[in-house]
């Protein structure tokens, strides 16, 4: 049972734009487009009302959390936009499976459009949004979530597509979850809504990353009320600015369904004569300079417009853009052995040991 206290904060129409800006930054290149997600969120708030933002402590241990996220190709999601019924289809299936209705929606992934869309889904369902997510950033694969790292089983996964098909999967582990969910998604036209790691509040402590919706909002707000957006963003994130420069080389290809690429950013101003290389697979994963690693996944590496501090997504990278590269530490859960095995450099095919950002000088 949800008890909405007087002090409860509501996400309003005015919060959508800053939330979207913040989620784009936390997407570190991936997570899908925030613009259409922001349109959907704004429309849902107007249509169904404002959304309470709650923390784990506002809920009972037995309350069920419904983590939701879009799965599929961003370009497809931008063209074949979600319908209105998918969240309701998933909620009904979850209620059937667990014997009780979910009490709150949680973003599976705070980075990119997947951090903004849950506002629309929560509004549609008349549920509060949990101020937490399963990544603290964006990642490309289904098993790359904090709940997997914490050792929780992914089962069951519930997916709903635009025409109303509902698929429930009971995979044996997180890796199979990725494989089967991806296949279902392709059959559904490369876009679907998905709930995985549906879990009670009692199991969520230590398994979800708390405060990330609030963080995204704070990032968006910090950038909008200042004359020095880049400095404000770096301060709010506690980020290092790796370089201020412009994109002078850009190579990309799609292998096995994932966009890969290398971006070279040549320094300007005080950073003249420096050149940073970024390895990208949907998200920005490894930053090097003269062969020396400056930051690696799962720490976060963001590319932002130097003047506006707005995030540049992987598919929006262009020659000549003036950008700054920021790096900031990931959630401690990702730095555990299982976290590094799941989403460290080697999980993405780079023969590198993970070194925490703070230990690189």
């Amino acid at each position, binding site marked *: 049972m949800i008890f909405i206290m007087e002090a409860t904060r509501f996400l309003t129409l005015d919060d959508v734009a800053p939330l979207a800006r913040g989620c784009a930054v936390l997407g570190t290149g991936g997570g899908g487009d925030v613009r*259409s997600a922001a349109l959907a969120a704004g*429309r849902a708030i107007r249509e169904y009302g404002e959304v309470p933002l709650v923390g784990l402590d506002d809920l009972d241990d037995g309350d069920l959390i419904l983590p939701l996220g879009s799965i599929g*190709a961003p370009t497809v999601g931008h063209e074949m936009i979600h319908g209105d019924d998918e969240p309701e289809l998933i909620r009904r299936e979850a209620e059937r499976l667990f014997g009780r209705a979910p009490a709150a929606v949680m973003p599976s992934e705070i980075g990119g459009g997947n951090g903004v869309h849950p506002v629309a889904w929560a509004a549609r369902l008349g549920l509060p949004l949990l101020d937490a997510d399963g990544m603290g950033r964006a990642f490309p694969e289904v098993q790359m979530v904090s709940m997997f790292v914490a050792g929780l089983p992914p089962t069951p996964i519930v997916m709903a597509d635009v025409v109303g098909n509902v698929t429930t999967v009971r995979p044996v582990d997180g890796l199979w979850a990725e494989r089967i969910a991806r296949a279902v998604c392709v059959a559904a036209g490369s876009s679907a809504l998905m709930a995985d790691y549906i879990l009670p509040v009692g199991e969520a402590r230590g398994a979800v990353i708390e405060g990330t919706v609030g963080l995204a909002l704070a990032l968006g707000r910090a950038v909008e009320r200042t004359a020095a957006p880049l400095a404000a963003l770096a301060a709010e994130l506690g980020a290092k600015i790796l370089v201020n420069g412009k994109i002078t080389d850009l190579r990309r290809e799609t292998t096995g369904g994932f966009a890969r690429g290398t971006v070279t950013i040549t320094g300007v101003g005080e950073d003249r004569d420096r050149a940073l290389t970024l390895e990208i697979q949907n998200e920005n994963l490894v930053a090097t300079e003269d062969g020396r690693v400056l930051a690696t996944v799962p720490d976060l590496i963001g590319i932002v417009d130097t003047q506006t501090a707005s995030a540049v997504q992987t598919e929006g990278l262009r020659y000549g853009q003036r950008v700054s590269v920021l790096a900031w530490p990931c959630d401690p859960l990702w730095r555990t052995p299982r976290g590094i095995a799941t989403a460290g450099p080697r999980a993405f095919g780079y023969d590198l040991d993970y070194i925490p950002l703070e230990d690189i000088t």
Partner: protein
Amino acid sequence: MSDDGRAGSALRVGIDVGGTNTDAVVLDAGDRIVARAKRPTSPDVTGGLRDALDAVLAEVGERGREVGRVMLGTTHATNAILERRSLGRVAVVRLGAPATRSIPPLTGWPEDLRHAVSAGEIIVGGGHFVDGRPIAPLERAGIRRFLAGVEADAVAVTGVFSPANPDQEHEVAEIVREELGGGTPISLSHEIGSLGLVERENAAVLNAALYGVARDVTGALRDALAGRGLAPATYFTQNDGTLMAVDHAARYPVLTIGSGPANSLRGAVFLSGVPDAVVADVGGTSTDLGVLVGGSPRESSAAVDIGGVTTGFRMPDILAIALGGGSVVRDGAVGPRSVGHRLTREALVFGGPTPTMTDAAVAAGRGRVGTRPVPAGEDVARRLAAAVRRADAMVADAVDRVLFGRADRPLVAVGGGAFIVPGAIPGVGEVVRPRDADVANAVGAAVALAGGRFDTIVGARGDREAAIERAGREAADRAVAAGADPSKVEIVELAEVPLSYLEGPAVRVHVKAVGPLK
């Protein structure tokens, strides 16, 4: 119009409507400029256009009868949207339900624009998946019921993945003709925009809302020409710097938005003969910097907002800085305030009281402008010299922003204030100052080619090569429809962007074709 009137017609007129001035030029068969004029842009746009046209026609005198073509770059459509004026009411039909209902049509539009434009919206069953399968059968009866209940000047139709599967939009156009008669114009999204449903739909709706404006401006141009005994072929310039014939422009008026910067870039190529360069178009208040690659404007990757509405249009990538001939000089600063069109009353070299960038450039020996010398005095001289240093630093910084590491490219300076640009700029090969640079935009309109573009996804299923060839043919067909000579159309741009999270080698293909007018 008769073909006889054009026989041996050796002259063509280029007109560009800018924010401050409307420029016109007349070019002869050898591409020589035989007349040129600059007139203030009037609030209704059409008045200034007539003035500029009259001025160049008066200059060529008897030879005016030889005018066979008129090319116009105008802000009529932009102004109509910004001022919510003369817009038609549009019935908006989207094919895609049950998909797409989380973002209904016109979501995110400014309330007053939506109020001015919308005659009603509906999302019906239809549309396609990325792999070409139908999402739902086309809901014909629902469309007929909707159309029976709306009072609309035009209809906009947008289907999910229509750029790859246009047949349904055509079928709906047939239904609209049956229900509303053949006189109601119909805007089909696949003919106007590219992938990205919301952006393409917005563009299709704006296009439908602009049919009345298009009728007015083409009518006004025709009347103005007829009143001077002329019946030339007329063309409008598009946002990518290419031309479309007047009947094409009447169907796609939204494509005329943003043609100004493209015109000035193309004019710079023509006047300077330099196909790869930075172009600085210096006006009274600001300077627009753009980049030419192989003679075409480099395009912006950011989404383009028109009147608060997001569209997927690709526009020339322009960096505007607040520096122009009229920029006011204060201690240690230049601009952003400008005396604008009052330059000839305000500037020191015209006997006015206000030190401007024009005065600073004259003092630095960069041009002879004005009616009197720069006033003597150590204080004035020091301030103007400081202003020149500051302005040069602004130009150098802007050039560095738009170039990417290639230090050898020339800079072509055009526009009325081009003389304030220094003769040497760090990172630039040389500074080129072509003749007639102050009417480069009108020249750009007169020398543009006809163009067409096409954008689609080539999926995992089917033959990639064949699909890309089909996309190329579609772009070429569109260039021909816009007025290009079919035997001379060529593909000038073919971009493939791989898509993530799709099975197999799916790519987004973008093709642009251009050709000289037939």
